């Protein structure tokens, strides 16, 4: 039963997405695919952070009827950690900004050379 814990499963998914994202960033040639790799990496890290705050058998950190129905009837003993979730909210917005900027750069790069293949952009290579 230990391996089917929700926290562990989401941790595993987070690690998997991070590795897939790194693979995409490192191995793809197309700039758009590299950006998608960044987005996947970002999602993986977000899932990882949320799952670190998960506590088994507890509900979302919103004080409503679900908390009042909990057997011990105490906020402290019935909600998961709100701090990683608040951090991830920030991280998602930053991730959005990074993706938007990367796409703008990709557009400019395409206009400059009419290609999206990363191997053609070797002006800074020596």
């Amino acid at each position: 039963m230990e391996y089917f814990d929700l926290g562990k499963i989401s941790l595993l998914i987070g690690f998997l997405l991070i590795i897939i994202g790194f693979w995409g960033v490192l191995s793809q040639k197309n700039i758009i695919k590299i950006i998608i790799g960044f987005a996947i990496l970002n999602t993986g890290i977000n899932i990882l952070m949320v799952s670190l705050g998960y506590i088994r058998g507890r509900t979302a950190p919103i004080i409503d009827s679900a908390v009042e129905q909990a057997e011990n009837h105490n906020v402290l003993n019935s909600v998961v950690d709100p701090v990683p979730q608040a951090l991830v909210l920030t991280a998602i917005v930053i991730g959005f900004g990074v993706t938007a900027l990367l796409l703008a750069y990709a557009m400019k790069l395409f206009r400059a050379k009419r290609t999206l293949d990363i191997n053609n952009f070797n002006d800074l290579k020596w």
Partner: protein
Amino acid sequence: MLRNLLIGLVLAGFVFIFYNLYITYEPKTELTGIAAHYAEKGAVEVGAANLVTAVVVTYRGFDTLGEITILFLTASIIAFFLKLSKVDEEKIIVHRGTSELLITASKILIPIIFLFGAYVFMNGHLTPGGGFQGGAIIASGVVLSILANPNRQINHNVIIWVESISGVSFVLIGVLGIFLAGGFLDNRILGLGEFGTLFSAGAIPIIYSFVGLKVGAEISNILNKYQKSQKES
């Protein structure tokens, strides 16, 4: 070949690190430290049912201010980066029309999407939601309207004014907190109200509405820049 080998090595290193982290990871069993304080006192001190909102808007309100600053910075850099030359700016491109289905559906859906976005950011202190999510929903309505009518011009002045006014109001509410309550961005400048109702949690619904409007306007601004850059030759 060497390249693939190096990529394989890097990924294998990550797999090794993550495997060790995974097998030694022990899930938490109780809240500790600052999280316990937020969970225990959050409802009394801030009055918000959604503890994440209490953390984002009040306890860590300064971070949120930095966050929308970053979003503003992104929008400005993109505006600077995709700036059109004078010749391109005056060019008029007529795009091919889209399908009748999309146009009709957008007429029905866009007001509902905007309404839902406003609902999400006004109820951020009660339900899972908030300014950033609501703003993103509003921007998705703008995306739909651009998709349905690619020739649509987004009114730039409206976006700039909404963004500026909501940003300034956010900071002003924060400064009011210094004089009327405990400190910068303290939400107790208004009464905490009855717990769990719309008009509760002091200034949080107002702050989050401004955040939602600002985020929606900024994302629409970025979309507008992307749309306009099609004119670039």
